[in-house]
């Protein structure tokens, strides 16, 4: 199916139901509970007619007749702010690269460049563990800017978290997102010892990457990053080293990028469209997103070929989508931002996530006074997908959750057709793989 066909096939008709004609047969997705069914052709046609009927009770009656009219799993009420179980520390609000599209505006979030003091990082770690109960786990993430500019605090905070974890019995996992230019083999050993999830920002192969992610003096960074990542790729056992590709109109060659990074040994390769940059540089418009969807489905077809042959292919977007579709994940938010996950600025201010550092829109109090639960409650109420438009009329709202808060607040929702088209493709791939390789989902 071409991207244009996917746009058309996935266009919203009814908020409660979506229909798919897959290679494995007709399929019905009920938005409520993200429930996917195989159906016969007659039933497919009956539901199709009902979802297009101007009388909303017609579809309700058909679903009731099929025994599918369960109470709705997601209501309009926002949950109370949950305990914070994940923090990201902006340990360095500065960066040695000059990526034009960067949400952090080359690392400093539009303010003075600064490092997080060790004491602030320790306070954040203590706060993370303070209310965790036995059986729970916490995650500590390091971001920036470029976090390795402040390597001593990354290491000290990690060691401190390990100490607190041992004392409390609360397991902790670690992650870091880096531009890769400052990585050393010793960093690799440290990350391996602590089982880090290491995400390296790479925007394509060679010159493509250099165009988008230059040093501040204009020199390219690709070769330097790949040279420095290589020892980590070789030593990863507990740690997982993944590539994150921010997709702009200038680096739309996704299958080659995926192939190259897979061959290099990355544990996962994920693509994310650039939807909102402070300068407008690199933002994707609908024609670009159509090209991207074409490229993503091409990556998906290669994934299917490999999985059918019993091999692994680390196309993270599809691996994750298939897992969530199989579980029937349904959620009123796109992520845990402002809920169980908060960002911490170098000054110890809390925000809804790492992207809202220094931004009043996502301010959530500070470490000295604990998270501001009133602000978090307001956030969860305002950001609930039932209060988002045009989400309330869209069948994909509980799979998508309404889209990245930061991008939506900054730019709106320019990528709905792309997201729906991609989910439609993922649902089709799921149907095919479930029929051909049910063992893929057994684990």
């Amino acid at each position, binding site marked *: 199916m071409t991207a244009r066909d996917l746009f058309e096939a996935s266009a919203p008709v009814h908020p409660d139901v979506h229909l798919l004609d897959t290679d494995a*047969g007709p399929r019905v997705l009920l938005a409520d509970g993200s429930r*996917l069914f195989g159906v016969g052709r007659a039933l497919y046609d009956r539901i199709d007619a009902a979802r297009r009927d101007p009388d909303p009770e017609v579809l309700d009656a058909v679903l009731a007749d099929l025994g599918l009219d*369960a109470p709705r799993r997601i209501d309009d009420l926002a949950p109370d702010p949950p305990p914070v179980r994940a923090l990201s520390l902006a340990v360095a609000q500065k960066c040695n690269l000059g990526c034009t599209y960067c949400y952090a505006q080359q690392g400093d979030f539009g303010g003075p460049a600064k490092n997080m003091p060790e004491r602030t990082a320790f306070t954040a770690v203590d706060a993370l563990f303070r209310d965790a109960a036995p059986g729970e786990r916490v995650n500590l993430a390091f971001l920036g800017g470029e976090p390795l500019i402040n390597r001593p605090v990354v290491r000290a905070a990690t060691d401190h978290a390990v100490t607190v974890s041992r004392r409390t019995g609360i397991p902790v996992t670690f992650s870091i997102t880096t531009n890769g230019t400052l990585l050393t083999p010793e960093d690799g050993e440290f990350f391996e010892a602590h089982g880090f999830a290491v995400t390296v920002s790479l925007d394509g192969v060679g010159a493509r990457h250099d165009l988008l992610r230059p040093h501040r003096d204009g020199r390219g960074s690709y070769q330097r990053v790949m040279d420095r990542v290589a020892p980590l790729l070789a030593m990863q056992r507990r740690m997982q080293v993944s590539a994150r590709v921010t997709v702009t109109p200038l680096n739309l060659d996704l299958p080659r990028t995926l192939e190259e990074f897979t061959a290099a040994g990355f544990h996962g390769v994920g693509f994310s469209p650039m939807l909102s940059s402070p300068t407008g540089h690199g933002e994707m418009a609908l024609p670009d997103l159509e090209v991207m969807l074409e490229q993503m489905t091409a990556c998906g077809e290669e994934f299917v070929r490999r999985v059918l042959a019993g091999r692994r292919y680390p196309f993270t977007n599809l691996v994750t989508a298939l897992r969530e579709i199989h579980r029937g994940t349904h959620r009123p938010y796109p992520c845990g931002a402002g809920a169980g996950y908060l960002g911490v600025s170098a000054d110890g201010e809390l925000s809804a996530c790492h992207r809202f550092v220094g931004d009043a829109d996502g301010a959530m109090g500070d470490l000295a006074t604990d998270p501001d639960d009133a602000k978090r409650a307001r956030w969860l109420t305002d950001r609930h997908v039932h209060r988002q438009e045009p989400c309330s009329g869209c069948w994909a709202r509980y799979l998508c959750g309404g889209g990245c808060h930061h991008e939506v607040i900054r730019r709106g929702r320019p990528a709905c057709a792309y997201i729906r088209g991609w989910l439609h493709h993922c649902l089709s791939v799921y149907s095919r793989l479930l029929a051909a390789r049910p063992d893929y989902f057994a684990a």
Partner: protein
Amino acid sequence: MSDDRIDPLNLTAQLNHTAAGNPPSTLPESAISNAYPGLEFDIRTIWRRLLVGIELHEADNYVVDAQPEHQGLIGRRLISVGDHDVIGPVVGPTRPGAGSAPLTSAGNPDGVMMLEWSNSLADVLADHVGRTVPCLFTADAAPNPVGKPAQLPDPRFQVVELEVRPLFARSAATGERLAVIAEDVAGPGELTSGLCSPWQNDYRECACYYWAASRPDYVNVEDTGAGTTTGNHWFAKDREPREYVLDNRDDSRLVSYDDLFRDWQGELRFIVGGDDAPEHLEADPEGR
């Protein structure tokens, strides 16, 4: 796939799908979460036909029926399946303060008891599904419990190879295992056929505060002003005097089993807000 068929594919679809023959109470959102023997379904039922060719009693290691090739097993007792015994010794004190000793009797000379199937057969299912497994039976019909012999072979026992049947159905669309109990393990209606019957029996059987919501214990409660209360047992035939009659199936002031069997719908009253509903207190003007 036939045209009217609907096949749940992903996990949420499977969990919330009413399988053919199952009542609404088998869905998570309508469950009362009491499944032994239960209000929604009797979980013991699913083990009766786990071994292909024979049917076991849901609460005894006794063969109640068999396919023609295993007719000889009817009336015999199953002792073990593979490495898993389905019986265990019964031990305990025989007088207050005494230590534990084997509890034997004339009807149970070996002092053994069948182990609940979910405990004794879950590992069998996990380890041997789809394959045959040696099953140890008594060689003859055994109306009473029989213990496991110290050594095998023993002429009083016989090993029969039986296949372990899958518990779950498979999707017609994908062939993948579903979160639905297979029809040849329990046919339509079988999961619910042995359920308890609250109105006729179990409201009487399960006494004080067992039925938290649907069978109140203490109703028409009033504060005496002295820090105590007065009120009625829900089962009190007369609401005067207003006193709580301690639950006792022999006390004629309370509704008896016979009363319930004969006229549960006449004896039991609706309670609204903790008090008898008005229609039970005032004469019905239309005489119904």
